[in-house]
């Protein structure tokens, strides 16, 4: 099939990536992260980062309000659960559509400006969405408590097929319940499809056009070429990715809170992308995983854990090491995050993928040397 | 023609005199990735005026900016010596303190500052030149407009201000970039008069100018650049006399 055609190098990337994602429950074990709640977050935020990268990595437009689309996706999905059916498919479709509609509206206005003015416009729209969701839109969003399912929800379509059970229903996929690992694998498959589509976009003529916007917007507008429809298309696509991620969040945990629209959430998406490596395929995913790992696992470390980690040290030394290390884990995980950011930005301006590239350059094995050479020949090929 | 051959054979112009006042030897400079100044060399004696000529994009302005030690283009290789001082090791503000003064192409009158502030600014750093009274004596038009914001002056007046601002510093080497550019013929004459005065003062000068004839009338010697390299170095009069040379490198 023509649609499935990709450069060989991208196909290899895709294959390796698929294996890595699908075997998460195995290789995450030694990291203490192989529980469904976190693995779902890993794949969902990877979708978000991949989508954000289509906008930021290709066009250079830095949106500081992307979390708004995530939130819209979540609310939409929960409403789909409440009104129509607990099945995941309509919820996801609606989430993607609503994410796209919101992105179209916000993007249409925001793309009238560029640079930091664009960033501030997107930030302003996202903050307005957040504040409204938190206060006056409470009938739609349930405010601070977050939108949740109730047994008494109408669920029109489900109602046609049978009586509601005694408890709260949970999301399902074509009749099969989606809990823990099932939900993880659903998200993982969605991630792989999204990743593949993003790869297609990166090598398509449309992707080339977006890159051209980034490299020289003014020159393109001098030639009378209108770049805005292209930038808007990229914005809407990345908004749909965010809506999709929001919908998946609601499927793994049917609740939608306003906080996921706050500016800090948008900032987190930016940080994920830059940390991993803007404009690369894999970078944003790695950035997302690193941040989610720090947030969930590092933050749950405590002195007891540290004492066991450092138990091989002599007693007096151990006390000191644990005392110092304890400032960087648990509640202090933000300190680690801040330091990691600073170090990466200072020493690896291209993000973690830049580090990987440098390592390869430093230890050129046969295959990677070949790969480097190919990269030089075709610099635009996605990593 | 003989001078041309000399350059072509040896790649550098040869000065017969001992220890020149200002010496540029084999400088290479880049704007980011692009290689703009590709090994330029020339000398100037004290009080001499050198016209730096060439077509658009030949690297004239870049050479001047390199000599003034601005960050862009960045000097990657080569040496610049002014009166025994290693200018190539300096940053722009140090070069200025050493006596190199660039009057930039678009004058660069500073927005938001009055005429007088533009002049005072030149005297903040060590190495001041003419005081305000002397400047106003020479440039009565600037004296009239001393309280006006510098960027509201006419083009000619801005050029005067730019030159006056340079004179407010202690100049050993003056670098003039397109002093006549965009000015009406009447104003050009006026600026010419000022430059003649400067010549009388015996200030060593490098002048870059599209209007080659005007520059050559002022200059003692000429250097012609072509795609970042020295294509000719010799007396100004010779260029004026040699139609072939002018045609090939200056398109006039």
């Amino acid at each position, binding site marked *: 099939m023509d649609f499935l055609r990709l450069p060989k190098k991208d196909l290899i990337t895709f294959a390796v990536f698929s294996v890595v994602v699908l075997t998460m429950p195995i290789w995450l074990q030694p990291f203490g992260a192989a529980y469904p709640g976190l693995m779902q977050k890993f794949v969902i935020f990877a979708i978000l980062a991949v989508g954000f990268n289509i906008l930021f990595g290709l066009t250079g437009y830095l949106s500081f309000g992307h979390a708004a689309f995530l939130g819209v996706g979540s609310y939409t999905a929960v409403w789909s659960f409440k009104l129509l059916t607990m099945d995941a498919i309509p919820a996801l479709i609606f989430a993607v559509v609503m994410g796209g509609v919101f992105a179209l509206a916000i993007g249409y206005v925001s793309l*009238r400006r560029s640079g930091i003015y664009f960033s501030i416009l997107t930030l302003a729209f996202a903050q307005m969405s957040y504040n409204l969701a938190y206060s006056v839109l409470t009938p739609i969003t349930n405010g601070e408590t977050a939108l949740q399912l109730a047994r008494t929800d109408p669920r029109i379509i489900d109602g046609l097929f049978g009586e509601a059970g005694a408890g709260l229903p949970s999301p399902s996929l074509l009749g099969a319940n989606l809990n823990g690992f099932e939900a993880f694998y659903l998200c993982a498959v969605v991630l792989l499809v999204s990743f593949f589509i993003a790869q297609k976009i990166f090598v398509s003529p449309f992707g080339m056009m977006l890159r051209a916007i980034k490299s020289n917007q003014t020159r393109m507008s001098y030639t009378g070429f209108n770049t805005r429809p292209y930038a808007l298309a990229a914005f809407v696509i990345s908004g749909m990715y965010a809506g999709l991620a929001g919908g998946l969040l609601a499927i793994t945990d049917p609740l939608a809170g306003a906080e996921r629209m706050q500016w800090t959430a948008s900032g987190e998406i930016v940080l994920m992308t830059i940390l991993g490596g803007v404009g690369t395929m894999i970078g944003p995913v790695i950035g997302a995983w690193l941040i989610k790992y720090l947030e969930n696992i590092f933050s749950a470390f405590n002195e007891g854990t540290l004492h066991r980690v450092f138990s091989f040290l002599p007693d007096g030394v151990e006390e000191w090491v644990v005392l110092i290390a304890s*400032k960087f884990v648990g*509640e202090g995980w*933000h300190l680690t995050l801040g330091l990691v950011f600073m170090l990466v930005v200072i020493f690896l301006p291209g993000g973690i993928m830049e580090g990987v590239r440098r390592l390869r350059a430093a230890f050129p094995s046969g295959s990677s040397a070949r790969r480097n050479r190919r990269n030089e020949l075709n610099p635009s090929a996605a990593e | 023609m003989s001078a041309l051959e000399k350059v072509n054979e040896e790649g550098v112009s040869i000065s017969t005199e001992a220890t020149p006042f200002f010496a540029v030897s084999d400088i290479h400079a880049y704007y980011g990735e692009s290689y703009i100044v590709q090994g330029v060399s020339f000398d100037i004696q004290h009080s001499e005026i050198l016209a730096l000529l060439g077509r658009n994009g030949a690297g004239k302005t870049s050479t001047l900016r390199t000599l003034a030690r601005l960050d862009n283009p960045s000097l990657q290789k080569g040496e610049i010596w002014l009166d025994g001082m290693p200018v190539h090791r300096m940053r722009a*503000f140090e070069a*200025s303190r050493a006596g190199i003064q660039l009057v930039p192409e678009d004058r660069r009158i500073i927005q938001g500052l009055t005429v007088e502030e533009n002049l005072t600014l030149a005297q903040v750093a060590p190495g001041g030149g003419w005081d305000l009274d002397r400047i106003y004596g020479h440039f009565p038009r600037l004296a009239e407009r001393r309280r006006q914001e510098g960027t509201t002056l006419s083009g000619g007046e801005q050029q005067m201000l730019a030159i006056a601002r340079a004179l407010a510093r202690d100049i050993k080497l003056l670098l003039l970039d397109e002093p006549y550019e965009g000015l009406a013929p009447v104003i050009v004459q006026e600026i010419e008069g000022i430059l003649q005065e400067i010549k009388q003062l015996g200030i060593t000068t490098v002048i870059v100018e599209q209007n080659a004839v005007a520059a050559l009338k002022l200059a003692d010697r000429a250097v012609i650049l072509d795609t970042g390299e020295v294509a000719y170095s010799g007396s100004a009069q010779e260029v004026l006399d040699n139609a072939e040379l002018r045609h090939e490198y200056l398109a006039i």
Partner: protein
Amino acid sequence: MDAILAQLLNGLDKGGAYALIALGLTLVFGTLGVVNFAHGALFMLGAFCAVAFRAFITMETVTIDETQLSPWGSPLEVRTPMAEQWFGEWGAVMVDYSVPISILVAIPVMLLIGIAMERGLIKHFYKRTHAEQILVTFGLAIVLQELVKTFFGPNPWPQPVPADFRGAADVGAWIGLQAGAVTYPLWRLVYLLFSVVVIGAVFAFLRFTTFGMVVRAGMADRETVGLLGINIDRRFTIMFGIAAVVAGLAGVMYTPLLPPNYHLGMDFLVLSFVVVVVGGMGSLPGAVAAGFLLGILQSFASMTQVKALIPGIDQIIIYLVAVIILLVMPRGLLGRRGVMEG
């Protein structure tokens, strides 16, 4: 009418704080061209100068009195403030006036912090992209706030208003209205006055001193200033220090209004960026105008009558105004062409 006047005062008071923070941010952006996401952290560090100073002068000696018992039956701890041991009556005055006095501490401390920050980190980022500047300063902001959390804990540190400035002033009576018609907290008036004075001082410094002239010239055209023999980098370093001092002083004086915690800077960060952008990146008068404008609008939008008209307007007014202004005036109120549009 009285209600409107009171609300206007409140808007000015908020605007003063916004303008002060935005002013420092704009100084850094205008001079160094650096988007400093750590600016909020400087505000927070200033506030903690006041906290630390007060903690220092209120240090207590603790002795255990075995003869007495605490309410839950442990031996009673007896605490004596050290300041009073050292300075006698002056100690009590110092404790009472700890917030204004800590300005004296904050100025050198913030100047040093600012200069160290610029020399140690920011200067390496002049030629990097704005995105990288944002990221590295954001990282720095996180590190700074977490360090403060390590030393001062997560909870807010209330700072008292000096006794002479407690309570409300009858502003209405001052301007000839009925007594009690318009009252406003005295310390908030002090803060407003303080912000006006600091803003005025910064502008006067830039307008009337040679140093200020050089800095203005450098903001307009850094390269040409270098051509005139001026080492502009060094002056900009000092400006960064001054911007840090302005942010720090804003923080010190704010502490009695809102007990500072480690998170204070982040809470003001987005707001201050909106103010700066609405004012026009790099424009000092723009930042001040936008600060007061947004403060006043926010205050009026919180009035019940306005909220009844447009529900939720108090929550979004700042962002709504930002959107409208940016769409109508592409570079903000007083921004220059070509700045930060790439």
